């Protein structure tokens, strides 16, 4: 059961470089393709991306969830927040795109626990869940907030 005293808790910030080859690898993975030659050119060819109106190679829509796994990973979160791993489910994910993230950008991730609450009634198993909402801000090397991610985890 999640530890409700953790509402408002901020995880240590983490800074990473968005690698060009990782973008192509991810784009191929979500397109269910075997190689980058089969994906949209904007995800690996800078000239093609610029022709399509981007300043560089953009990251795929759901790419930035990866930075979660390159840092604390799921187990880091489980330990920090006191989750019961066997009951834990990823319930919702939302991205708010305030700017673009391009290959080569240096992104700082700031993640915090914004809410923890109970949903449903305890005497109705199957309908009851404990909800934890994490909010992640992704800030580029110029200090611009480029994407906000809201992740909802539930224990049931």
């Amino acid at each position: 059961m999640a530890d409700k005293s953790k509402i408002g808790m901020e995880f240590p910030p983490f800074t990473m470089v968005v690698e060009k080859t990782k973008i192509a690898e991810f784009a191929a993975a979500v397109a269910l393709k075997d190689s980058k030659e089969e994906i949209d050119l904007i995800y690996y060819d800078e000239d093609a991306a610029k022709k399509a109106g981007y300043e560089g190679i953009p990251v795929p829509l759901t790419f930035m969830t990866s930075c979660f796994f390159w840092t604390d990973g799921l187990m880091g979160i489980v330990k920090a927040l006191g989750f019961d791993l066997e009951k834990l489910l990823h319930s919702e994910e939302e991205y708010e795109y305030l700017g673009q993230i391009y290959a080569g950008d240096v992104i700082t991730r700031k993640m915090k626990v914004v809410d923890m609450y109970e949903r449903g009634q305890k005497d109705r198993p199957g309908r009851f869940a404990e909800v934890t909402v994490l909010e992640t801000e992704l800030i580029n090397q110029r200090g611009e907030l480029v994407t906000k991610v809201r992740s909802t985890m539930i224990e049931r």
Partner: protein
Amino acid sequence: MNLTSDNINIGDLMPEYTSAPITRSHLVRYAGASGDFNPLHHDETFVRVIGLNNVIAHGMLIMGIAGEAIVSWTPHKYLRKFHSRFLGMTEPVDWNDAENTKKRATIVVTGKVVKKYEENGEKRIRCNIVAKDLTGSRKLDGFFIVALP
């Protein structure tokens, strides 16, 4: 035809997008690409310990497929928001029984424009989406918001 705010209206449908049948190889590729190495998604012996018959796809892979559906219709740079709620597990194809298992592993994404409005000086639409497999089982629902020229 290029998508603009003049040629899109409430009730319009996003072109239906059908994925390839998801294989275990796709799950391993996504695990490597995303860094999500939860054994639930690739280790058959682990899932049996916890009482499942098969490895299951990452929910975020299904959201990624829904993202593919979206950007195959509207350019990536127009996106302002993308929300998904995960509803069900997806099992990959069993190659030793491909005919009977392809449907459960094939994702179909559909969407419908539900709102057209102005915000932050931009012409925006909200489109609700659903991802189901070919047996009709729902995997996720959600919405996206795009700003159109």
